[in-house]
């Protein structure tokens, strides 16, 4: 009997023009989202490549100058010297021999590579640069730049697959299941069906299985197609592991919404009332609660103001200057190219510039750390409050799975902060020793390789969200299951 009902329901679904239209819409939305997600990631990669090529190119040019200079020294005799200061192009050893100049005027761009599933959930990656510059500048320069994006677009958010899953999928689910029992009851067919050897629970389950089966099969197929179309690193186990997690999360989330439909249906109200209740639930869980949680987080743990940070950094700069600069003309500090040839003070200017940067770094660091610590507090509040909305859990989970989460970005930034120390050490030591940079020194520059987090760490962070959804789902199944005993089959 159950099987008959399931196959009947499935057939009915496919015959209904509305359902076919809905399936088409889901497919269209996924295709559109995959396309836009792909564009977004491609753009990031293009930006990273261009930035890296530009800065490496400038250093490459400097290296080439030193190579030429080395050849010239070898041919003409004499000593391979350290360029004393920047000067107008032409005479003297090239600037590339001066480690202080190279280290402070060129940067090295570090890149956090996208995971294979990155186009699925854009997360914050449209704001935060996935490639950051490291130089002898203070730490705050690493995160100074943002990705270029129209603020209106940022405000609206991306149309990525995560959006389709979190916002649209529930609407489709509710649209095909909000009148699960109520419509049969209204048509008067419910009593007739139940005259057959089937319980109300079985009937309900069969109807849900038919709908969920069809829709989820569709989602699975669409997911795989999307992965093959826009996913990358398809040869890596990591990508497929992430994809499986994605599917598991989507399944849990979708089942939760099916369960909500059942839950509302067992209260025996008419279809229109069910529709209102479910639309209200969707609005509350997907739109209102997340904004309330966000409001709570930013109200309880507001980030320090970037404006205050700016004025504080300037204060530090002024103080550092008055200490270190003494009688040195700052004009040279900004324009070493104007320092008269052979002026010994030129060296001091660069040293002062470095001391200056150091002072700013020290003064601003505590303020700067304030941002990260408030952000961490906000994130942990969101972690705790996520359980009141499956949409929050899902967003956190999908960002995590796609590698666009706040945690992974922080993991990347910490590596960048460490690397900055190593990178500027290299130049500072050579500069202070007045050791001329030779072409081969350029080959000894510290290299950066992003170290991916262990997959277990990612899994551990996913546990609360996935477990929370599982608990919600169980609750949403259990309540109607118990409640169904009291369902009135016919309108009295």
């Amino acid at each position, binding site marked *: 009997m159950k099987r008959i009902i399931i196959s009947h329901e499935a057939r009915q679904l496919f015959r209904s023009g509305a359902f076919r239209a809905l399936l088409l819409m889901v497919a269209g939305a996924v295709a559109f989202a995959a396309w836009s997600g792909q564009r977004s990631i491609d753009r990031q990669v293009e930006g990273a490549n261009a930035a890296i090529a530009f800065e490496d190119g400038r250093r490459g040019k400097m290296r080439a100058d030193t190579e030429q200079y080395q050849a010239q020294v070898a041919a003409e005799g004499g000593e391979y010297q350290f360029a004393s200061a920047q000067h107008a192009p032409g005479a003297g050893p090239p600037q590339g021999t001066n480690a202080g100049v190279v280290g402070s005027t060129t940067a090295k761009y570090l890149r956090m590579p996208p995971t294979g599933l990155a186009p699925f959930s854009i997360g914050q990656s449209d704001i935060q640069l996935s490639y950051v510059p490291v130089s002898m500048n203070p730490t705050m320069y690493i995160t100074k730049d943002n990705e270029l994006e129209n603020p209106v677009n940022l405000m609206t958010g991306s149309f990525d697959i995560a959006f389709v899953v979190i916002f649209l999928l529930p609407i489709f689910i509710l649209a095909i299941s909000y009148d699960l029992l109520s419509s049969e009851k209204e048509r008067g067919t419910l009593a007739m069906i139940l005259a057959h050897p089937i319980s109300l629970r079985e009937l309900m389950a069969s109807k849900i299985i038919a709908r969920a089966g069809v829709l989820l099969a569709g989602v699975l197929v669409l997911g795989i197609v999307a992965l093959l179309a826009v996913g990358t690193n398809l040869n890596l186990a990591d990508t497929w592991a992430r994809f499986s997690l994605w599917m598991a999360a989507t399944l849990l989330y979708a089942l939760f919404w099916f369960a909500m439909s059942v839950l509302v249906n067992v209260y025996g109200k008419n279809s229109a009332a069910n529709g209102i209740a479910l639309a209200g639930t969707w609005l509350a869980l997907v739109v209102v609660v997340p904004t309330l949680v966000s409001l709570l987080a930013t109200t309880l743990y507001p980030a320090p103001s970037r404006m205050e940070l700016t004025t504080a950094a300037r204060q530090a700069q002024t103080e550092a200057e008055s200490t270190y600069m003494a009688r040195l003309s700052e004009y040279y500090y900004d324009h070493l190219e104007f320092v008269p040839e052979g002026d010994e003070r030129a060296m001091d200017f660069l040293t002062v510039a470095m001391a200056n940067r150091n002072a700013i770094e020290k003064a601003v660091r505590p303020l700067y750390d304030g941002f990260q610590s408030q952000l961490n507090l906000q*994130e942990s509040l969101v972690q705790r409050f996520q359980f009141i909305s499956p949409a929050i859990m899902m967003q956190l989970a999908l960002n995590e799975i796609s590698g666009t989460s706040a945690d992974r970005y922080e993991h990347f930034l910490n590596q960048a902060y460490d690397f900055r120390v190593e990178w500027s050490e290299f130049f500072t030591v050579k500069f202070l020793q007045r050791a001329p940079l030779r072409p081969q020194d350029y080959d000894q520059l510290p290299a950066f390789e992003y170290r991916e987090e262990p997959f277990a760490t990612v899994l551990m962070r996913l546990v609360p969200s996935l477990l929370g959804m599982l608990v919600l789902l169980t609750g949403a199944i259990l309540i109607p299951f118990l409640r169904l005993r009291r369902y009135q089959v016919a309108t009295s």
Partner: protein
Amino acid sequence: MIASIARKEFSEIVRDGRFKWTAGIMALLLLTALAAGYQKYSAYMDIQRMSQDQTNAQWLNQGDKNPHAGAHYGNYAFKPAGPLAFFDNGINNYAGTALFMEAHKQNFAIGRPATDQSSIGRFGDLSGAMILQLLMPLLIIFLGFTAFSGERESGTLRQVLSMGVSNRQLLWGKALGIGGVVLLIVGLCVVAGGLALSLTGPSTESESLGARVTLMALSYVLYGGIFLFLTLAVSAWARNARTALMVLIGFWAFAGFLAPKAAVEISKAIHPTPAFGKWMADMRSHQMRGFDGVPPFVRFEQESREIFAEYGAESIAELPVYVGALRLQKFEEYDFPVFEQHYGQLRDSYTNQRRLQDRIGIVAPTLPLRSLSMALAGTDLIRHVNFADAAEAYRRDMVLKVNNYLGEAAASLNTGYGGGNVLIADEAIFAMVPPFRFDSRGLQATLAEHAGNFIALMLWLAAALGLALWSVQRLKVEED
């Protein structure tokens, strides 16, 4: 007749138990949003004013140094939030707040609040505007979808029409009744919120505040009207109440959630913005090779004869101004067209994207309304662009002033390019650059840019009304 229908509709809704819940939640959310918005707004504005004063003072007290070094020290422009930001925060979370104005470089406004927020912030802000844009239409749908379909199902429609009420009278009556309820909830909250805010302390900048509030109210009334008549139209047209509800919720989700995001992606594809790295590399290499392909150093050498001739001089020694300062200023000016091209390219892509998104509003009324609301609140893209332009104008003026001063004061030092470094400026000299102040362009310019959005809302209202009239004309009295 219309009045009594409206009264019946009004009291029927108000007496319904569900109404109390819906209205209560709506009112609570709206008041929370307004209070939170105001708290954030005033905190932001306090910091903004303080920081701007501080940085202006820092400019003056930067210590005695070479005037050009002073221009390197530069100044910051901090963006004011916009007169109605507490109601609609617009793009403020996603646009920079601090713009560094220094010699040689045009900069972006940095410090976007969104980067210092949890990723959950991307679900959106709970603001008065958000509630009116997304929740109010749903409220209207909930209150109105049974207006005709429900009466038909319960059989009262036949009775009412048999009493000699025309279909149109019924429509207007119901529109007035439901509209009255919505206005009651929303209006009360907005007025209460507004009163509380005007009582608590110093109000916002008064950039034609009255006109802004009036136009804002008008836009939202238009928007509410669109959903009201669409709801009535669908209610009259649909076979039964649940179909009406599903169609309306579908449209609401489309207009409020799907269409804006889809419009963003479409506009990005048609008017792409380069990635930061690509843009930065392009601009800086362009700067290095010179706008017309002649690097600044070379170009100055080439043009020096003409430049000197402008001053009636043939050699550096004859120049009445210090040559180092002259060259600094020339280098500055060589970069202007480069900046204009590359920053202009970005600005154009943003503007074109926004315009296209507004145009897509033809299929979803939430888009033009959102755009209008931000513009009237002073939290939109146009204002942000104005701010960046004002900062760039200030920067150029600041650099020009200090370089000119250096040129004149160090005129006797024309021994070489490095001669002028001995010149030291003090606070009195730095005071020749006035403090930065951002005066946004008037409301008029904003309105001119947004005329299309007003028209779009009007068209939507006309279409919704037309649809409603057409639907009631062919209203079926009984279910088939």
